[in-house]
Each structure stands twice: as structure tokens, then as C-alpha cells.
């Protein structure tokens, strides 16, 4: 799909199409809050979409399933909540701090976890994330079961009042666009090509002289930092950071979003996040059956719908391949 085709004769047309799609996407983002949809719902969707895209960078483009991304999402939420509420950070700086914490964790966890591949990698990331969960359960600053509540949205750069939901919406939209652009650039760069090379044939990449381990850790760090960016933003939107954000259920949710939308596609995780967030909103009345519904979707997706929504659409487009 990528590689040689991107340099082929129709590159300008593809470029134009890409710009058009990006423009249309931006237009949708600008118009969405005026369509009567709840802005909080849209903001939640964007946070989870960014989270899923960050996760997909590892699963879809390096072929490594991290079952512990909730650790980055949740820890960033806690870090942001703490620095904004207790230390009075500007919301923007607070979010950056959260993402930085997640990135640092990603560097350490990545360095440990890449020592194993495949299914072991999933188990190791899950176990490391569980360690973070227990840590959050015990330390003081997370306030245990209560979580950090009442995080102030505050004034962005001291100028823009984020308590206004429309201002908050555009702030979140900007973060989402920047995060998405970083992922897009990462995937469509020589570095991204190296990632896909590792996914397809790791021994060959090693023999070609690529520092495979370092590349994987870098990708994991980027993915963790962006997952943290999503979690940090979410803590400002909902003004809370709780244990739910670091629990392995959250890791499972982001796997499901990516799976249902289409792993290894740029836009799939966004669609998947939309489906799951909408479903959770819609099914909120049936209480804990939601878990069962999630489980059923998981099973059905794995058994019959492995390409996901966007993956299935791309596979049916005639001009590809």
C-alpha cells in the first residue's frame, strides 16, 4: 500500500486528495459543535480518538500489542491534574507536563518490554501497567479511590477562559489536530518506513543495519507521550483523574477501539473511538451489561471482522493495490 506507490506518477493527485481530506476533516471539526451534538461528548471522543491513534502507532505500524497503554493515559491525567490543581500550572503547561511524564514512562517501559516480542510483549506491558495501577492506588497525590477531583479548567495562557465549553472545545480540537499530525508525520517519514519494515521482517531490518531496538523504544516513547497527551487533555475536560483511567479495562478499551476501526490504518482508530464512545453513551442505561457488550464486540471482531471498519473499506476500494 505504501512504499513505492507513494512515489509513483500519481503522487500529485494523491497529495491533492490528501489535502482535500485533511481540509474536510478540519471543516468537520470546526462545524461539529454547532450541529447540536454535546461538546463534552465531542471532546471525549477526540481524547479517545487521539488515545487510540497513539496506541495504533505501536500495534498497527510496529506490530507490537501494548496491553498497558492505560498506564500512560491515566498517569498523565494524574500528573496534569496534580500540577494544575495543586501547583497552579497553566492548563496548556499542565497538559504538556502530563504528556512528558507519560513519555518518560514510555521510555522506561519500552526499554524493558522490547526485550520480548509478540504475545510476551503484551503480557509484559499489561503487568507493568498493573504495577502503575497499584502505585496509583497507594500513593498520596492520586487520592486513592476518590481520584483527583475538581481540577480547574482555568485560563489558557491567562487569556482564554476554558470554563466556556466552546473555548474548551477548540482547545481540545487543536490538541487533537496537533497529536494526529505528529502521528501522521511519524508514520509517513523514513522513521515510519523503518517501523513498518520491523513489522514485516525484523531480522532483515537488523541485517540491514537498522538499530531495531532503539527504533522500537523511540516509537513506544512517542506512542506513550501521545497517549499521555490524550489522558492529560481528558483530565482537563472532565476536571477529574481517577483510577478508571489507569485500570486495565481502559487498556482493553483502546485495543477494542483500534480493532473495530481498523488497525494499521490512519483513520481507523478515530472511527473505532467514535463507535465505542457513542456506544458507551447510548448503553449507559443498561449499567454493567456494557462490559458484556464490549466483550461480545471483541469476540465478534476477532472472529469475523479483523480488518475493522476502515480496513474493510480500504480493502474494497478498487484503486488500491
Amino acid at each position, binding site marked *: 500500500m505504501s512504499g513505492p506507490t507513494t512515489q509513483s506518477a500519481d503522487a500529485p493527485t494523491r497529495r491533492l486528495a490528501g489535502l482535500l481530506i485533511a481540509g474536510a476533516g478540519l471543516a468537520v471539526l470546526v462545524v461539529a459543535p454547532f450541529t447540536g451534538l454535546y461538546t463534552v461528548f465531542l471532546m471525549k471522543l477526540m481524547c479517545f480518538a487521539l488515545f487510540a491513534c497513539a496506541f495504533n502507532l505501536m500495534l498497527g505500524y510496529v506490530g507490537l500489542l501494548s496491553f498497558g497503554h492505560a498506564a500512560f493515559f491515566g498517569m498523565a491525567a494524574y500528573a496534569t491534574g496534580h500540577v494544575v490543581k495543586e501547583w497552579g500550572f497553566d492548563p496548556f503547561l499542565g497538559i504538556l507536563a502530563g504528556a512528558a511524564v507519560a513519555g518518560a514512562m514510555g521510555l522506561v517501559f519500552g526499554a524493558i518490554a522490547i526485550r520480548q516480542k509478540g504475545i510476551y510483549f503484551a503480557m509484559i506491558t499489561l503487568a507493568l501497567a498493573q504495577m502503575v495501577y497499584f502505585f496509583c492506588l497507594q500513593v498520596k497525590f492520586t487520592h486513592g479511590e476518590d481520584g483527583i477531583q475538581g481540577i480547574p479548567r482555568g485560563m489558557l495562557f491567562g487569556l482564554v477562559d476554558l470554563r466556556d465549553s466552546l473555548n474548551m472545545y477548540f482547545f481540545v480540537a487543536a490538541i487533537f489536530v496537533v497529536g494526529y499530525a505528529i502521528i501522521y508525520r511519524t508514520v509517513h517519514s523514513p522513521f515510519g518506513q523503518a517501523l513498518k519494515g520491523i513489522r514485516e521482517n525484523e531480522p532483515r531490518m537488523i541485517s540491514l543495519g537498522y538499530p531495531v531496538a532503539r527504533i522500537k523504544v523511540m516509537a513506544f516513547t512517542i506512542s506513550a507521550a501521545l497517549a499521555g497527551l490524550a489522558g492529560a487533555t481528558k483530565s482537563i475536560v472532565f476536571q477529574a483523574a481517577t483510577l478508571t483511567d489507569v485500570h*486495565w479495562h481502559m487498556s482493553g478499551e483502546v485495543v477494542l477501539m483500534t480493532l473495530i476501526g481498523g488497525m494499521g490504518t490512519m483513520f481507523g482508530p478515530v472511527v473505532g473511538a467514535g463507535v465505542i464512545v457513542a456506544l458507551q453513551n447510548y448503553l449507559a442505561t443498561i449499567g454493567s451489561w456494557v462490559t458484556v457488550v464490549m466483550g461480545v464486540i471483541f469476540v465478534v471482531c476477532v*472472529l469475523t471482522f479483523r480488518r475493522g471498519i476502515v480496513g474493510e473499506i480500504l480493502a474494497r476500494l478498487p484503486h488500491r493495490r
Partner: protein
Amino acid sequence: MQELLGIPSPLLFGQLLIGLINGAFYALLSLGLAVIFGVLNVINFAHGALYMMGAFVAWLLLTYLGIGYWPALVVAPLIVGAVGILIERTMLSRLYDLDHLYGLLFTFGLALIIEGTFINFYGVSGQPYAPPQVLTGGYNLGFMFLPAYRGWVIVASLLVCFGTWLLIERTRLGSYLRAAVERPDLVRAFGINVPLMMTLTYGFGVALAGFAGVLAAPLYTVSPIMGQNLIIVVFAIVVIGGLGSILGSIVTGLGIGLIEGLTRTFYPEASSTVVFVIMAIVLIIRPHGLFGRPRE
């Protein structure tokens, strides 16, 4: 009062006993995971949920049919094993040709379904389950007090672990199984029904989880979430031990249980995280686990 390393010895031995019991459960569960992974190449995320199911089946048998602990110790694992066989035949067996990650994702979904369903019917608070009459009371060992049921749990799980090891390493059936792990295609060419063996292996592996669940029922309250965090600890143990050897997973399970017990005595804050720290250290020193060997 006697003291050992500055800790009253009854306290130390008490914690070591708890550690040994936890270790026995870790051993049973990681053994099941190792057997299933060896033959099916699937990491069974639903193992914790099926362990919970074993405990719940025992409780349901007692509550609705009046069937007591001893029959339940046999019947509940059989029921859980049958559920496992059904799952393997109808769904899991379709995933063998795919990336192993799909097996993990499938069983993860399965765990959500099983746990979610039980939570909906029974809540998360948990149901009490009394130990059998014979095993109430306990023995004074001089240096500590050993409740009879706890002693039984250790003996029973060690027997089952050792029996499984004998079955796999010392019998003809076990030799087929080990051959199927190495070269399923060749074993098949010799006329051995490999798909049937895979089905039975999955059934057996999850029956072990069900057995552990029944053993656990009188110790902990029977709750739908009892297997949820346990399975992640067991994953860490599997990473520490490596999935290569049966004996390795038993030893690692017991060892980690004891280390947790010691940690709870000397530095209780770290008792829930120590296993993950050990995992990280082992990964740095021996990436394939203590008993593992590089695969592929």
C-alpha cells in the same frame, strides 16, 4: 515470644504460609497457562475468569443443589473444562492459523463476557463459602498455627501440579503432547488426532483453573472479580518463569508466592508490586525467563 530477623516468628511464618498458599494458586494457574500455550500457542486471558467460574460453580452447586465441597472439587472442574472445550471447538480453533495476538484478544473478550455476566447476576460483593467440616480447626505446629483447610490447599495443589507434570513428562499421552508442541504436522502424519488433542488440552488447562477456583472458594469470598487482578499477576509469573517448562512454572509460582509473603512481612507497601519489579529485573537479566528458551 520467639523472634526471627526482628519479626515475631508466628507473624513471619503466618505470612510465609499465606505466601505459600498464594503461590500454590499461582502455580496451578500458570501451569494451566503453560500447558495451553505449549500446545495451542494461545495465551488464555480468560484463565482468571474461568478460575472464578470454578469457584462460582462450587457455590451454585452448594446453594441450589445442596452438593457439597468434595463432589464439587471434581464436578466443578469438569463443568469448567466442558465450557472450555465448547469454547475451543466453536470459536478458538478458528484462530490457530492467525497471529497469536488474536488468541489473546479473543480470550480477553471472553473474560469480559464471563466476568460481566456474573457481575450482573451476583454483584461484586462476593458470597461466603464454608470449608468442609473435616477441614475446620487446625494444628499447632509449635512455631505457628496451621489452619487445616490452608494445609489441605497446599497439599492438594501440589499433588495436582505434580500429577500434571507426571502426566506430561512421564506418560505416553504426554509424549504425544510434547511431540505435538514441537512438530504438530509430523505428529499428525503419524495418525494422531492433533485437533482433538488441542481441544482436550484446552479443556484440561481450564479445568485446572476451575480446580484452583474451588480450592479458593472457602479461602476468599466467591466474587465475580476474584480472578481479575490474579490473572495479571499470573501473566507476570509466566514471563518470569518463561513458558518453556512445566516444572519451571510450578517452581516460579510457589517462589513468587513466598517472596510476596516475605515482602508483606518486611515492607507491606510493596507486596502487590514486588512481582512486577521482579519481572522487570528478570527481563533485563534473562529476557526469555528463568526456565524459558528462545522461541522461533
